């Protein structure tokens, strides 16, 4: 998910010429509002703000949608008044204003015509009217706000820019609220269930008096995620550097082939890599359980509490090897970027003083790209921690310990198991299955991945600053 360098957003200076013109200050606002010409835009601003407020409330409270009825009618009238007034004074029709007014009128009619619940027309389910009116109300209100600002301060360039802000900001705010709700839920519920106890105990299953007793625990899931990330990074670093070096230093038909294949590894669905893991592990199933290859791929066989041999479905090593197929393209992309950013004079200087290609790579190019490699590895580790679809078929609940050849598990699997895997099934059989730790696992997973992405951002920014000095040499 984080293959792209989203740190670019946090990147350094983005030089842009400042726009000349009057900035909007409180004094200006007051003066404008006081002028008789524009007084009629004051109510439209108020109505737009009210529309945004009603829309926001009705998004969560179905009942509040009726508030839009009165508001839309009043708004249509107010906009019509303002447009009419402007027409009278300037002799020209305000076309944008006309569109906004019509939009409000349509909205008012929609509010009046819609029943509260819509059904029929082969639609599955009953749709509440607010599902239709709320988006319209929000968009119309934002447009009204834009238009009012434009008319209030229309003659300054920065006000022109400001007037677009509500329209552009609306989808962003809606999305941020969605993220806030989602992550807020994870944080609140997850923090509630967080305890030292659950962190230091593995998930376990015992048979007591004929019934099963399950204990929630995340210790092995947490350690498993960490081990998986470490192994994946260790496996992917060399091939990733190889890909990047070849792509930058030896362009040509082979480089294009390598480039295409790394792109495709990112492009295919992750579960396809998961299938490949299953295939590889399955191929090892014909071997004796104690043969080294079988142990590496399937994991060491373990004996469960009832004395039965449990066949492992995949070891941490095997899982990491296949996760690295996903991580190599990420690390390679960052390394490539780092190699391409090596200043020309440094490259040429290295050749000029007679350094061999190998020396140049070892002492100049790769050290220069090191921060990029680290960034890529951190993001790749975050990706490894979150790519459940790859280990899904092989993972278990981690009852048998954590080690390179143990059966694989991870925090993401813990999360999956509470919702779809073993736990709902256990519960359906009448046993008490612990599922209350789902959000705790989600929170831990979030903390790990966010820590890594923030770390990547930090590394990148810090090194960008360090090298800026040498960049100014030329």
């Amino acid at each position: 998910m984080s293959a792209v360098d989203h740190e670019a957003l946090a990147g350094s200076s983005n030089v842009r010429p400042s726009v000349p013109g009057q900035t909007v200050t409180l004094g200006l606002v007051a003066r404008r509002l006081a002028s008789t010409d524009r007084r009629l835009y004051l109510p439209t601003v108020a109505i737009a703000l009210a529309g945004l407020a009603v829309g926001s409330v009705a998004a969560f409270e179905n009942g509040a949608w009726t508030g839009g009825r009165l508001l839309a009618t009043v708004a249509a009238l107010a906009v019509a008044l303002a447009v009419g007034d402007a027409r009278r004074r300037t002799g020209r029709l305000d076309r944008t204003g006309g569109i906004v007014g019509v939009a409000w009128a349509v909205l008012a009619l929609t509010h009046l015509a819609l029943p509260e619940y819509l059904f029929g027309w082969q639609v599955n389910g009953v749709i509440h009217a607010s599902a239709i009116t709320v988006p319209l109300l929000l968009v119309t209100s934002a447009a009204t706000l834009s238009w009012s600002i434009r008319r209030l301060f229309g003659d300054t360039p920065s006000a022109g820019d400001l007037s677009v802000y509500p329209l552009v900001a609306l989808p962003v705010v809606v999305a941020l609220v969605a993220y806030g709700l989602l992550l807020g839920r994870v944080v609140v519920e997850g923090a509630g269930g967080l305890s030292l106890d659950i962190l230091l105990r593995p998930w376990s299953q015992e048979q007591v008096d004929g019934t099963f007793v399950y204990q929630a625990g995340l210790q092995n899931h947490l350690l498993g995620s960490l081990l998986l990330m470490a192994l994946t990074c260790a496996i992917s670093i060399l091939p990733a550097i190889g890909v990047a070096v070849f792509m930058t230093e030896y362009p040509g038909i082979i480089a294009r082939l390598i480039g295409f294949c790394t792109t495709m590894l990112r492009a295919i669905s992750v579960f396809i890599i998961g299938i490949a893991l299953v295939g590889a592990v399955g191929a090892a199933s014909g071997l004796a359980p104690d043969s080294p290859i079988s142990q590496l791929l399937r994991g060491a066989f373990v004996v469960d509490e009832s004395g039965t041999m449990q066949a492992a479905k995949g070891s941490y090593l095997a899982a990491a090897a296949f996760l690295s197929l996903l991580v190599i393209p990420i690390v390679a992309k960052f390394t490539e970027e780092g190699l391409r950013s090596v200043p020309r004079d440094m490259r040429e200087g290295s050749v000029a003083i007679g350094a061999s290609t190998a020396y140049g790579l070892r002492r100049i190019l790769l050290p220069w790209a090191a921060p990029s490699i680290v960034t890529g590895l951190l993001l790749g580790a975050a990706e490894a921690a979150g790519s459940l679809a790859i280990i899904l078929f092989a993972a278990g609940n981690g009852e048998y310990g954590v080690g390179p050849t143990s059966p694989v598990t991870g925090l993401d699997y813990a999360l999956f198991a509470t919702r779809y895997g073993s736990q709902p099934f256990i519960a359906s059989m009448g046993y008490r299955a612990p599922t209350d730790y789902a959000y705790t696992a989600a929170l831990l997973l979030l903390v790990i991945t966010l820590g890594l992405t923030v770390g990547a951002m930090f590394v990148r920014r810090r090194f960008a600053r360090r090298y800026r000095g040498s960049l100014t040499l030329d």
Partner: protein
Amino acid sequence: MRRAVAAIRRQAVWPAALVAVAALLGMALAPVTTLAADPSPLAENEAELLLEPAIIDLVPGTPVTLTVTVDSVAPVSSVTADVLFDKDKVRVTGIGLGEAFAAGMPLVGQAGQALDAGIAEANRTGNLTAAGAFLLAGMGELPSGRNVAFTLTFDPIAAGQTSIALSKAKVLDATATELSVRGPAGGAKPVVVEETGPDAALVAAIVGAVIVVLALVAVLSGAIPRRRLLEGPYLASLLLGLLPVAAFLAIVALLVVNAIPALETPGLKALMATKFSSAYSLAGPTGDLGLVPAAWGTILVSVIAICLALPVSIAMAVIASEFPAGPLGRLLRPLLGVLAGVPPIVYAVAGAVFVTLFVAPKFAGSLARTSFDPAAIGVAPDQWPPVDVPFTDTSFPWLADVGGLPNSTLLGAILVALLVIPFMTPLIHDAMRSVPSAAREASFALGASRWYTVRRVLLPHALPGIVAAVSLATLKAFGDVLILALAVGWTAERLPNPLVDVFERTSTLAAEGANLLGNLQAGTGGACEIKGSSCPVGYASALVLLVAAAVIVVVSGAAESRLRARRPS
């Protein structure tokens, strides 16, 4: 038009060549799996009982269906067997009749005991006594030969591997004479599967030969310069860089090899059907296995997700690059980096919050009366539609419970949109930042406002980048398994009606493929080792996804390069 075709052709050279090589390799190496001939023919008055497969890998939550097959020399009227299983690992949930016994009666336990009681007792003791089937008098007889007598359904309790065995069995022929039975005596007996594929040495030889030929071609054609061959850095990075190539080729070959049997059973026509039944059987494909609904679901989900995500991403990129000093701009810069790290499974699980806040109250009004407590989702009962509106539970297939949540294609698409927004935004933002500052400055110098500059200079310049971002996001939406599985469902059973009904549950190829293959667990006796299982269908859906991904990569690459070429420099 011709130029566009040429651009696509230029982009498609490598993919086509690679896929051809992988497919040829795959087909050359494809093992032919057949049921082996019986080791020894049945003697007179002999029947063989097979339980397939005997050693199974358990996935909690996925029921296992075992088929008990009888192979007899004489027509048969009744088959019973004692089945031993580990009661701590699996639990019997049912017995069904095989096709051959469709007109018969299932049996479990003591004579006169109800089926349920027999099953309950079996779950206490771990011995399913006298499980079987018999033909009712006057219903005719089972012809001699190999027939599926009955099926047993087990629900796994814990993950792991277990063996299920037949201990003793009785087969009566049409005249109610007992046939001597072989098979169960030795305990568990897995179905005999013979791989008549090439052996390991041949595989190694073919792969080795292909590699040598490719290497020779590469060196002789000058793709790999001869003078560089002995250079350390060149050779090292070449060998390391070819690892992803090899992995990709191997994956393509794996998919092709395993998907080919699907062309035979259930056949291309069945794959193109518009029905899919989630019935799963180890014995073979049962029900419909059409992939069209899932393909449509894939399109539906990704189109909705991109339509939702693209405006938001562009707005975010505009704010981050043009209004960086505002409150939103300052918030967005660190936030996007953080959001991009959120794993899909978190969206899938925490997506419940949208169900309770939006999807249920806004789109599920009538549930109040049937299966939902309105108070639970914060709506007063009197706000629900009147009771006389004729709705039933089945009016709302999209509300079927998965993990306790009502779900729909729409919910899945919304969550996928949230997943791809932090992924697309930085790409679009980058594309906007890479617009030469001269263009931007010229626009400002001519008196254009910032917004005008965004619309007329930045976005047109950034169009190739936006195309790339959209194609990558589409690939992500195509490939996501977990969000779709949890928010929509594992399978798409039929096309929605009308086609754009987003309140139905139409899952995607990725989720369906993962589901079909998820039942496959590594190890002996995995479902995919049985001829005619539905596994090839899972591989086929993966192959469809792979081809779709290649097409998107190629087409978007061509579009991007064309847009770049057209752009004023």
